[in-house]
């Protein structure tokens, strides 16, 4: 199999590398790139990586499609990059790269957050840029690297500027307000599935009940613990979870459920509660539901439309903005 792949690789034209253009990725590797990036493959969590590419205004360069399961979840991926609908997926169900498909796609660069994929593809002469997003604000570092990859550092700087301004604006608006106790919950498995929520919940003026300084991505807990927390607000990622909570013998009687504060996270390029370039909007949205009185002056729909127009370079209709904010998958 290996020799067949090697033979296949030898037959394919190698992308032309412009003289002297190298980019240092987040593993400290120097990667040689062509002058103009026209074909990009993203590997790993596609909604996350693609959101970076959209924020660079380069959605049209992505040549790999979403996995079948992901298409209905993130249909706005198809809005921001319509070619994805017909593009083949380039990773296996195990999330390993499909090397033959990637070689055939002749990408100018592969973007990934998986170390193993870096080695696997670099060995075969493919330019791979490694991105890392462990600490919350590393999204800005990712964008800075992409600014170099797409030779457009000004656009990356504009994103970083928007990010900092938005987070600071929200911090000013909610300063001093009592923090509601928030549980970000996957109700059927009783887990808090995303570490990043321990960043955006406090950034929006909330207090996450699951924040115990852990480093693992998800955290599970007992039903009794949920009763003990009895949070003011429950955040879920799927409208069906709201129905699940309302039917549940115990969850339905929590303070949040009785007050109608079981909220569905919006979904755009990615679910806003996950790592995504849309994270400034996550903080804006969360602050507007945690502190409606403090955020009265902010029109969330207008802010959302402006983000996708100015950062992603994509004008959305009012109906599309409403759909994103509803969190419907």
């Amino acid at each position, binding site marked *: 199999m290996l020799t067949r792949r090697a033979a296949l690789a030898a037959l394919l034209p190698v992308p032309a590398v412009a003289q002297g253009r190298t980019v240092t990725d987040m593993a400290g590797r120097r990667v040689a790139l062509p002058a103009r990036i026209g074909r990009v493959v993203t590997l790993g969590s596609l909604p996350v990586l693609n959101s970076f590419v959209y924020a660079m205004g380069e959605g049209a360069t992505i040549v790999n499609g979403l996995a079948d399961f992901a298409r209905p979840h993130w249909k706005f991926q198809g809005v921001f990059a319509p070619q994805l609908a017909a593009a083949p997926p380039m990773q296996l169900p195990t999330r390993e790269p499909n090397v033959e498909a990637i070689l055939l796609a002749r990408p100018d660069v592969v973007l990934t957050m998986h170390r193993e994929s870096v080695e696997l593809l670099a060995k075969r002469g493919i330019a791979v840029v490694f991105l890392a997003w462990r600490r919350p604000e590393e999204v800005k570092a990712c964008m800075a690297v992409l600014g170099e990859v797409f030779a457009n550092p000004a656009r990356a700087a504009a994103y970083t500027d928007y990010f900092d301004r938005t987070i600071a604006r929200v911090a000013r608006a909610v300063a001093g307000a009592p923090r509601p106790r928030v549980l970000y919950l996957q109700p059927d498995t009783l887990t808090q599935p995303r570490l990043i929520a321990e960043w955006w919940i406090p950034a929006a003026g909330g207090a996450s009940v699951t924040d115990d300084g852990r480093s693992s991505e998800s955290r*599970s807990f*007992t*039903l009794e*613990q949920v*009763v003990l927390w009895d949070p003011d607000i429950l955040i879920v*990622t799927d409208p069906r979870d709201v129905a699940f909570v309302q039917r549940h013998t*115990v969850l339905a009687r929590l303070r949040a459920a009785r007050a109608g504060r079981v909220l569905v996270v919006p979904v755009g390029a990615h679910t806003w509660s996950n790592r995504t370039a849309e994270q400034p909007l996550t903080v804006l949205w969360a602050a507007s539901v945690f502190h409606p009185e403090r955020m009265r002056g902010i029109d969330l729909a207008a802010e959302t439309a402006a983000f996708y127009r100015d950062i992603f370079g994509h004008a959305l209709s009012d109906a599309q903005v409403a759909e994103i904010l509803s969190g419907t998958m």
Partner: protein
Amino acid sequence: MNASLSSPRLLLGASALGVLGLFLLSFLVGPYPIPPATVLRVFLAQLSLAERGWSEAVEMVVLDVRAPRIAAALLVGAALACAGAAYQNLFRNPLVSPGVLGVSSGAGFGAALGILLGLPGAAVQGMAFALGLVAVGLTVWLGRSFDRHATLVLVVAGLVVSAFFQALVSLTKIVADPLNQLPSITFWLLGGLTRTTPATLLGALVPIAAAGLVLHALRWQVHALAAGEDEARALGVNVRRVRIVLIVAATLMTAAATSLCGIVGWVGLLIPHIVRMLVGPCFAIVLPMSALLGGGFLLGMDNLARMAGTVEVPLGILTSLIGAPFFALVLARTRRQWF
């Protein structure tokens, strides 16, 4: 016979008292601090024997969080241990567990399929139950088409059917949506009682109780069977009928228990061993003793799961972590032949 049973009967009574004590203590386990007197008064209040002086949350924790889990742990532990004891008698092999005929794998596939289809909790339980029965049906059919009488063939058929359904489970995991369905399937397969509601509890209680009564009614015939088929026939036991009824009853129990709590291993293998070590091989005593110790063991494990801080360790992991070394210990201490 009565004289030889007097000591086992004493042990049975002592175990019953022990499990009762554990049952009462279990209501005090959990992160929500509720004083014992309040727990008692919550129950008395249900009978209008006490004034309500506590928050709704306290009542919810006692009646809707702790009570269903405690009841489910007792029920599932008892069912798995009884089914294990029955299967071990049937196959005259102490290394047989309730999953031997493929019921766990079948139930696992049923649940995974139900989750994949987006069915609600009770329907997932129903699918697990049904596919558990289908798997055993397949095993029995396969075994009979090779050799109508050899029990060993049945065990091999069980291996084949288990492997087949495990492959189907893997397939559902591959096609499942990794965002929501895959975690649900994984948690289901790890086993746990968090999903228990009064309705799912009742759904499992009916078949388990019915099958338990059948096993109880057949206890002496099953005991005779353990001595060997010819000996049992000489004692007037309809061997074929008893074997079929035994398989049906033990399968019903296991399928109902598994559909309620997912795959919880080692209870059905370990408990009958300990029971025979304590009271000897007589099935008439082994059965109730297995029910008591199985229920008590799983309740103890679930209490550990609930106590282990705010992070819940899935029950199936705990029973394996503790059950496997304990089983090795039991084997090392008793090198006797059981049957």
